[in-house]
């Protein structure tokens, strides 16, 4: 279970790299870079985040779920199995996905730079 910012950075990198394989580099990097001040190289490795990595991670999940909620839930859920907070977020995505509503309408997105 990730506890430190380093752990969350590693988890961020794992998720982004996995989603690059699944959805494609252009889409995932665009989504990841549009959230906040983050440094990601072309392989998807996150080298720096301005703000709290955990908050950024939540925003990234919500942002990716906007385009492919079911596959995001299916592929990210096993990666966050040790984190109840992120698991709850994923479960919420599942419900929202079935309602055809944009996940962002219910999940508060906190910019990593807002703190």
């Amino acid at each position: 279970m990730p506890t430190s910012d380093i752990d969350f950075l590693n988890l961020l990198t794992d998720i982004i790299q996995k989603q690059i394989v699944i959805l494609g580099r252009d889409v995932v990097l665009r989504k990841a870079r549009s959230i906040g001040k983050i440094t990601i190289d072309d392989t998807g490795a996150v080298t720096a985040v301005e703000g709290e990595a955990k908050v950024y991670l939540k925003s990234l999940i919500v942002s990716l779920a906007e385009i492919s909620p079911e596959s995001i839930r299916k592929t990210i859920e096993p990666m966050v199995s040790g984190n109840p907070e992120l698991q709850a977020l994923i479960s919420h995505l599942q419900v929202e996905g079935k309602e055809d509503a944009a996940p962002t309408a219910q999940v508060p997105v906190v910019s990593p730079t807002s703190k």
Partner: protein
Amino acid sequence: MNLISYILIATNILGIAVIGFFLYREVKRRQEAVVQKKELARRFYELSVLKHLSEDIGYSLHVGRVVEGLVSTVKNLLQYSSISYVLVQQDKLNYKIQLQESVGSEYLKEAKADILNAVYEIDTHTRSNSVEEHVEGAAVDEKAVQAPTSYFNIPLVIHNVLVAAINVSSTQQNAFLPQDVDLLYRVINQATRAVERLESIVETEKGKLNSLLLSIPTGAVMFSIIDNVLQLTSLNTSAKEYLGLTGDPDTFKVITSFGKSFNLADKIRSVLEDKKTVILDDIKLNELNIKVFISPVFLYGTGKVIGVSITMENITFEKQIQEVRETFTHMVVHELRAPLTSMKGASELLISAKLGKQDQEKMLFLIKDSTERMLGDIADLLDASKIEAGKFAISKSRSSINSVIEQRVGVFIHVAESKGITIEPTLSPDIPLFEFDVERIGQVLNNLFSNSIKYTHQGGKIRVTTILEGNSVKIEVADNGIGVPKEKQAILFGRYSQAGQGGFKSGSTGLGLYISKSIVQSHGGKIWLTAEEGTGTTVSFTIPMENPVAQQKTESSFMSPQKYLN
């Protein structure tokens, strides 16, 4: 420069500024119009795709068709070099790529890897699936070396299962506008949710139908034509029971379980060809009589046959009823014809006036006996009918069971004597008076004595015994007659059953023991039979003693048979 010159210059500058402003506004308006037009085009695309899908999905839940429908519309939104998709099937991945422009083998290889890696990443189990590949569209240029430089994948996950993935690729860098890509994701997500909802509805309805099918007493079997092969798709509990099947039998086992009484495969073939229901009125399956309906199943709204349904109705009970009816009719005709024939013969002789007085009396007695026999048979039939209608009633009064037995012995001892049969009563003096239906218990005794006399050889013996057993009295009528074969003992208390054999003519309706059983049971007692073929029969019954009152002991209980003859 004079003032006029300044004014002219200022006017020109102002004019240019005004023109520039209007030009700027026009350019901006045109730019906004282009953006709006583009946005409208996207909205139009989204609506047209969703309309197309709602129509498509409305008719089919075939994921392949839905994906093909989606793929065919993407060119209205994006410019790409290729679009490909993978359909995830049980053991294989069906990969199809449509080329919009000529590309090389390197491009094909990478485009395939891009989508397959996505599939493998989402569902690792698919790695072991074989891949079936189809390439369509523009010709492959072996000299072209360019690989896809822009691409994105859209996975289709339904009920948490990856069913397909779509890949859009281009040889151009940054070939796709983010708004277009996001729109495509949105549209495909909506399509996926629509399929998911429809599947849920279908599954729910299927669940309801299955529950109904499982619980009904009618056997139901459904075979569907899948890939031109008839496959078992549904088999309910009743059908399994009728066919003697357990577990999850396959198509072959179900077809062969119908046995050799008819060829099910042939019948199914004729139903598929003629598109008409075939009814098999009475098929014997595992000792059951089954009526079988084999019907074609049509695709909704078409004449296309997509399977065969078999419904099985258990008609064993109806068959038994039919047999009972036939037995009944036969018995009534036979039993009533015999005394009527005697009566007719006697009447004719009497009319002829050729008989002496003694013979005339004989004929009159014969008519009387025949009439009594017929009335007895009719009374039995009425009793049986009351029993079946649940209207059989008894009327109890306090009385002596021993007295009733003595009275009955008195009636039968003459007939027994005429056959050289003795009746030996052994009646317990300890039995108190208690409440029972004197007439009906007398009827039971009549039946038992009558049977014993009928099935006992000359010189035989009938013993009747009463025994006090707690709060009940047990009455036994035992003979040393022909006995009853083991296989017939169980059915003797049923309707129209007779044990007649060994040269003995039954000459009865066969309702005696059936009525006796009902009378005893109406008193809360039990009746049973022990017998051995060739040795004799003992019929015993009990009557619980209701409101017993002790009675004075008399010697009558142990009187000799001679008493009844006086």
